[in-house]
């Protein structure tokens, strides 16, 4: 069975919520919609306090090339535009909407009726995706329409759909593949049309046999879509690892997937594309896995953007007393949050509750040069070396050791028997080296 070649680890999968069907979560009283929900520039608000908005109405505009639109996920009155703590842990600008009823814009098709006929041209599709404010829903939140505009001189040969969900605990993509298979397939065909390819692969790890079987059956109806079962190994959902696993090509250091003729999109993004293009529905809701060993009912919730996470946690059974950490995303790459009032954003794939005793780091010992970090690094780096150069502030050395190639998957820190904070140090170094490189280009 296919997988990527170098490195990788096997954290316990703990897919506790894989059998819970997606449930629609009730609306909040107040929705908090951060203006910074994508990789790149934050959006500009175009509504004022007191304005009435309907679901799906544009409330903040894309502010630059790499940016995205934001739409009202609820109907009601704009209460204020003020700062709120978001999932980054910082206070940032957000639009507060007091929810009144659930009134949608008339042109949005709310029915479950499947529309498989694609009536739009390549340009129209990309424009619709841009208008719907879609960003990469796997967690990176890169604006999707930008990714679909193939640079001049390059040509896409295939589309790769990421259904790997290699993070432990998370199951939102898994449930989507099972429950929205047809919509997903149409979404994939729309993306294929937009980048002018005739071949798409869906990569799914073989710990989701039901999804593999379901989509393989469906794929007979849709031309050019092939399901690729993959051996379970973290971080297979990394773009470069996934491309290597499925078509065997290696994206050169510092380059994008298009360099080897690929465009990679997440399952959730493909579904959002279907809704945007076929149903006129902007990105106003997403599936969030709420899970954890101490959580009473681990579940998958279809949630409006802007819903405070406390409501999601209540739905999964109240927050356990021994909770020590709450993570936005999976346990390997997710961010620990510092408040229960942060809202659901476009990039939130899961909420993981960790008990007190699992939330603390292990004690740190000397590096015993066991080379485990070297053997698990999926980018073929020497994490111990980069972490050392970071500790002594040797940025140019870190750069020559390839620090910018690090995908921050955390396999090194996960595996280090001495419990050393390798990735923390590498991140610091990556940040500084990134600044140096940008300064050099000026």
């Amino acid at each position, binding site marked *: 069975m296919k997988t990527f070649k*170098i490195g990788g*680890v096997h*954290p*316990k999968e703990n897919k506790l919520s894989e059998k819970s069907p997606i449930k629609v979560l009730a609306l909040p009283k107040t929705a908090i919609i951060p203006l910074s929900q994508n990789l790149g520039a934050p959006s500009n608000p175009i509504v004022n306090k007191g304005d009435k908005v309907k679901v799906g109405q544009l409330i903040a505009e894309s502010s630059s090339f790499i940016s995205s639109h934001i739409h009202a996920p609820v109907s009601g009155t704009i209460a204020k535009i003020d700062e709120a703590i978001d999932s980054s*842990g910082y206070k940032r600008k957000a639009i507060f909407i007091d929810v009144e009823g659930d009134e949608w814009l008339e042109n949005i098709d709310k029915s479950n009726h499947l529309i498989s006929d694609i009536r739009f041209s390549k340009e129209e599709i990309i424009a619709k995706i841009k208008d719907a404010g879609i960003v990469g829903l796997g967690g990176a939140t890169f604006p999707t329409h930008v990714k679909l505009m193939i640079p001049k001189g390059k040509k896409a040969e295939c589309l790769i759909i990421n259904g790997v969900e290699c993070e*432990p605990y998370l199951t939102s993509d898994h449930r989507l593949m099972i429950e929205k298979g047809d919509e997903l397939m149409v979404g994939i065909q729309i993306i294929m049309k937009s980048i002018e390819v005739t071949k798409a692969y869906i990569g799914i790890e073989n710990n989701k046999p039901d999804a593999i079987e379901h989509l393989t059956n469906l794929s007979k109806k849709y031309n050019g879509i092939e399901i690729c079962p993959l051996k379970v190994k973290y971080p297979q959902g990394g773009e*470069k690892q996934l491309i*290597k696993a499925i078509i065997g*090509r*290696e*994206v*050169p*250091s510092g380059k994008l997937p298009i*360099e*080897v003729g690929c465009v990679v999109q997440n399952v959730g993004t493909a579904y959002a594309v279907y809704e945007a293009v076929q149903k006129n529905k902007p990105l106003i809701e997403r599936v969030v896995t709420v899970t954890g060993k101490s959580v009473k009912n681990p579940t998958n919730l279809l949630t409006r953007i802007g819903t405070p996470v406390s409501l999601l946690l209540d739905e999964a059974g109240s*927050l356990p007393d021994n*909770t*020590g*950490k709450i*993570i936005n995303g999976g346990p*390997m790459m*997710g*961010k*620990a*949050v*510092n*408040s229960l009032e942060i809202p659901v954003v476009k990039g939130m794939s899961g909420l993981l509750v*960790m008990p007190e005793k*699992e939330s*603390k*780091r*292990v004690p740190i*010992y*000397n*590096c*015993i*040069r*066991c*080379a*485990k970090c*070297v053997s698990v*690094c*999926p*980018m*073929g*780096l*020497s994490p111990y070396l980069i972490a050392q150069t970071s500790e002594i502030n040797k940025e140019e050395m870190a750069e020559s050791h*390839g620090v910018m*190639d690090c995908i*921050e998957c*955390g*396999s090194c*820190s*996960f*595996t280090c*028997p*001495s*419990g050393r904070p390798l*990735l*923390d140090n590498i991140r610091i170094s990556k940040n500084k080296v990134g600044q140096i490189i940008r300064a050099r280009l000026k």
Partner: protein
Amino acid sequence: MTNTLTVSGSPHLHGDQNVKKIMWGVVMALIPATLVSFWYFGIGAIIITSVAIVSCIIIEYLIQKFILKQSPSINDGSAVITGLLLALNVPSNLPLWMMVIGAIVAIGVAKMTFGGLGKNPFNPALVGRVFMLISFPVDMTSWPLPSVNRTVLVDAVTGPTTLGVVKEGLAKGDSMNDIITKIPSYMDMFIGNMGGSLGEVSALAIILGGIYMIFRKIITWHIPVSYLLTVFIFTGILYLINPNLYIDPVFHLLAGGLMLGAIFMATDMVTSPMSKTGMLIFGLGCGLLTVLIRVWGAYPEGVSFAILIMNAVVPLINKGFKPKKFGEVINNG
């Protein structure tokens, strides 16, 4: 509730390996070889092993407490390994005070002066052993014969090791056929029924330990396999050139400290290379040097020297043989 949330960088999970588990895993892997030595060399082996381990632990504790003023970390098991390996590398009738000096050199000089666990460039047990070998050459090279003196402590029947027999025989000009009659059968050498240092006699027990360590992912196969294969091929070529002058490669694999060295000493994580290619080259170097010393050097055995010399080369190997980076050489697919 909100005030008590922990916020830290990802990853939020940690694997199940830790330093203590690794170190005690190595100790577990050494148990078969230790038990074989107790069986063949009796009470002397038990005493010398205990003395070595206890002195290593005490010396590390004292240095950490009174000189480095650190909180002692003797329960990480690394001092126990050094003590055990040191004992397995000496004859069972070695005077105990010599063992203590060996322990002082191993822990005090080779390990703690560099900053303790993980910082030492040379394998501490080997430094201790070589120090004893050079300082007390007679006591370090008269080995009691196995199974003869299990309950006797001193004045035991001693004899040279198999490697010594071969080396001296060849030096005197004896023919290879005569020499072979004086060494134990390969089966005895494999299970450990021969004279030698405590832990090096039984290839079988050492290999069992090695398989356990590979299974527990404490070591990888690269260093032992490349080391043993190099010795086998090099001595094999010599044997094919002139079987009257050079003994066969199987003998070289089973004799002396090669197995112990290749599986437990050369694989010491702290003093071996970081990349897989580096490990293969390290094993190759150890193998070449071992054969050079055994065949043409002044000492009958060359494993300790070979590994220590290669330890010194490790930083260079690490610099020269980094793992291949993802996307490094391929251009435009």
